[in-house]
């Protein structure tokens, strides 16, 4: 518990440091959870509470890690959440997805309680409550919650009565939501277009038109349209958006800038070494529970379907999976091994983390304020 308290203290320190350097970061429009701001009962969360929810996430990540793995992996995962620029920047910028992550983690706690057997009803109540919050806050969860429910049914080997109960409850939550959608079609259509923006990207449609113009000029329009058309183009776009989320450069370098301006990587580069080792843990899990192979693509879905992919804000729900993978690699392969090669990699990992942390501390203080000014006042900097 002392370690956890120290991690929370460190988290507060990191967030305070970044806030001092770059606040206010007006990237996110103040969003509302519940009812998508379409009716008067939407609930707006003040900015400062987002940081508070971020600190709660540390506790949930620790708890879940402790149940699924062991204490060491849990504490390391909590530490990773606390110090990763990814989570820090999103909280400082007031991203609502931090709150969605909190709710999702609480839902996972509910599932774990259901698995424990003795707290089955409490667990189910938590799962249903949190699922409702998620369903009424994000359209993407309309796909994710039913799929997660299916996964839970398979994972927990529930009895028929239990399956019926849980399915009935999930369906019951959907009913008011469906009525709301029918009553407010235009509003929901707008929310849908905003959250699943992948197919309404104007640049993509222009590109398809340009390509078809080239084909028409060459006189093979009809043949060309069979090979190249809107559907093949969008399929490529979807595959591309998904694949981006499975490369290390996305998470461990500043390839895609955080909040559109930062050159801080989402996760410190040194952790790529234990991450690669941790992937082996996933191979073993997939061998045992084959359907869990759908978990990473499901969690990536909101980001893959968004306009600018990868969207680190929507992708935050996938972050705990990466943190657990890194911690798993650190504990089970790297840090307690006696092999000379692994010792060398361990030192390389710690060294990289240390020097990048020093570099980031300086970079955040002296350069990030300038970078966010480039974003706020682009025409001024272009003129000067």
């Amino acid at each position: 518990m002392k370690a956890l308290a120290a991690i929370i203290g460190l988290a507060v320190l990191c967030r305070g440091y970044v806030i001092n350097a770059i606040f206010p970061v007006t990237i996110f429009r103040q969003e509302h959870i519940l009812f998508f701001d379409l009716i008067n009962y939407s609930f707006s969360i003040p900015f400062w509470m987002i940081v508070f929810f971020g600190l709660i996430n540390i506790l949930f990540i620790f708890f879940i890690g402790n149940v699924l793995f062991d204490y060491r992996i849990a504490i390391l995962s909590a530490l990773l959440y606390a110090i990763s620029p990814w989570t820090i920047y999103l909280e400082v910028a007031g991203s609502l997805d931090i709150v969605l992550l909190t709710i999702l983690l609480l839902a996972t706690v509910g599932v774990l309680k259901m698995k424990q057997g003795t707290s089955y009803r409490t667990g189910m109540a938590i799962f249903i409550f949190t699922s409702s919050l998620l369903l009424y806050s994000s359209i993407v969860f309309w796909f994710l919650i039913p799929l997660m429910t299916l996964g839970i049914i398979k994972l927990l080997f529930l009895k028929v009565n239990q399956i019926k109960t849980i399915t009935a409850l999930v369906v019951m939550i959907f009913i008011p939501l469906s009525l709301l959608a029918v009553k407010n079609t235009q509003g929901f259509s707008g929310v849908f277009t905003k959250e699943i923006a992948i197919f309404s990207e104007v640049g993509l449609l222009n590109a398809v038109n340009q390509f078809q113009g080239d084909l028409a000029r060459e006189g093979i329009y009809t043949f060309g349209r069979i090979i190249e058309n809107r559907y093949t183009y969008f399929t490529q776009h979807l595959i591309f958006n998904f694949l981006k989320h499975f490369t290390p450069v996305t998470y461990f370098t500043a390839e895609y800038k955080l909040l559109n301006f930062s050159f801080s990587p989402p996760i410190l580069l040194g952790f790529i070494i234990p991450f690669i080792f941790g992937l082996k843990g996933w191979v073993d899990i997939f061998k045992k529970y084959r359907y869990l192979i759908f978990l990473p693509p499901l969690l990536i879905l909101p980001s893959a379907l968004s306009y600018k992919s990868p969207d680190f804000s929507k992708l935050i729900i996938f972050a705990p999976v990466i943190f657990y993978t890194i911690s798993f690699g650190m504990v089970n392969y790297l840090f307690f091994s006696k092999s000379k090669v692994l010792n060398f990699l361990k030192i390389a990992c710690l060294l990289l983390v240390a020097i990048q942390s020093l570099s980031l501390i300086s970079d955040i203080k002296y350069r990030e304020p300038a970078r966010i000014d480039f974003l706020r006042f682009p025409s001024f900097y272009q003129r000067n």
Partner: protein
Amino acid sequence: MSRKALCAVLFILTLIGGLLRFYNLDKNPVSLSVDEVSTGYNAYSILKTGRDEYGNFLPLSFRSLNDYKPPVFTYLVSISEALFGLNEFAVRFPSAFFGTISIPIFYLFFLVFLKDKYTALVSALLVAISPWHIFVSRVGWEYLLGTFLVVVGMLCLLKIDRGLKWTIGAALTLVLSMYTYHAQRFFVPLIVLVFFLLNRKLLVNKKKEVIIFLTILITLLIPLAVSFIFGPDKTRAQNTFITNDVEFIRNIKIDSLTEAASPFVLFDNQLLLFFHWIRKYLAYLQPSFLFFNGLNLTTSGTYGSGVIYLFELPFLILGIISLIKEKIQNKRLMLAWILIGLLPASLTLTEQHYGRSLIISPMLIGLSSIGIIAFLKFVNKHLSKARKTIFYIGFSAIIIWNLLLVFLLYTIHFPNQRGEDFMEGTKETVLYALKNSSRYNEIVFDPRRGVQGPYIISVPHLYILFYSKYDPAKFQREAKKIGDSFNFDKFTIRDIKWTEDKNLKNTLFIGSPWSFIEKDLTESWILERIYLKNGNRAFLIVSNP
């Protein structure tokens, strides 16, 4: 498979590969790029006078466009020009030729490297149809020849224990590769070092061969080393090094705003550069480079062709898994080849570059081949006949769709969307100028061009030299630089200042529409309009009668 059948298959693959590389070689890409025309004219100059365009006798480094090109490819182009004349085909012929014979060479290489003839055969197939390999085979650049020589060199090195001819062959081809392209100068010493570290027994059992190899290598590299330390190659390295990366200087380092503030700034900058380099290095493993737009065939922001086909994605993954799980010959060397191969490309100032990273293409092809064999074994073992048929039909449809898509990208969209990158239209303007040169006292070319704005700086003088087959000896003797303009014969390369120039008589002006002020331009003065394939206007040819 019998030896005869194997040879027949290889022959057919080579024919197909040759057809894909040679068909319309002079027409696609639509025009010679500035590098190609520079290489072409310098090769012509060497052929006629033994000197480059600057008068240097048989140089080890061609100054060219102040980028100091390595020599081997240019000398090969002179041989090609001796056979075919000074034209587009001759400039691109060496790449297409070595690209075609790469197909059987890749087979032989993987036969020795992986010790499996079916994997080797699949590799030959993949290289025959590889978009990356075909694209660089059809342009007169050094990348393909450099990679070809490395593959041949490593093939010989793998057989170093079989006799002196392989030892000498390895040394000569690897040295030649370092005189062919810059990336190889970094790559070859490192891969040779890794090879001997992984095959330490050779150092003991084949000491004589190793010593001969290293002696030849080091001796022949002395001139290169001298040029690098004291000569122009140092300039080239400095100009292209990652520290000149514009994004790093402007957005990451931002010294101008922060230098007074931080006591750690100097130390900081080196660290930022290090992490910036790591990002560029890892970005070569991104799906955008590998599968979606690595070859830059289409306009920015659209999907084109990656360096490998999209259908190869599952095979690449299977190949990596097989590499980890199974006992595959030379797998450590394969991994080292990819990791080292990305180093020279990532240390330059440009983002992912298909030419500088071409050195890793043999290993990516190898990985895909391993994956294909593993895939076929799995399908044959675990699926019933009916399911196998459905699976093969479905997957074949995807493969055919992907092949046709890349075919359309290369033959239709690439010429339409990237013509300007290859200076499309310049040849037409030069041919017009040459045809009508007797009517004018002076012909002025404005080097600035571009459909979006005058942002592209061309080198029209090289195109004039090339298409007029200008006497290299005469060009070497002429004093060319006068003030801001570049002059030879009656050609002047300078910015057109239309407010003053419009009054000049007996002068032909050739420039993009940006060079002329429209309200001061009478329709009758416009002698010719040159359009790009996509219908955009590239040049105006104007004269005040």
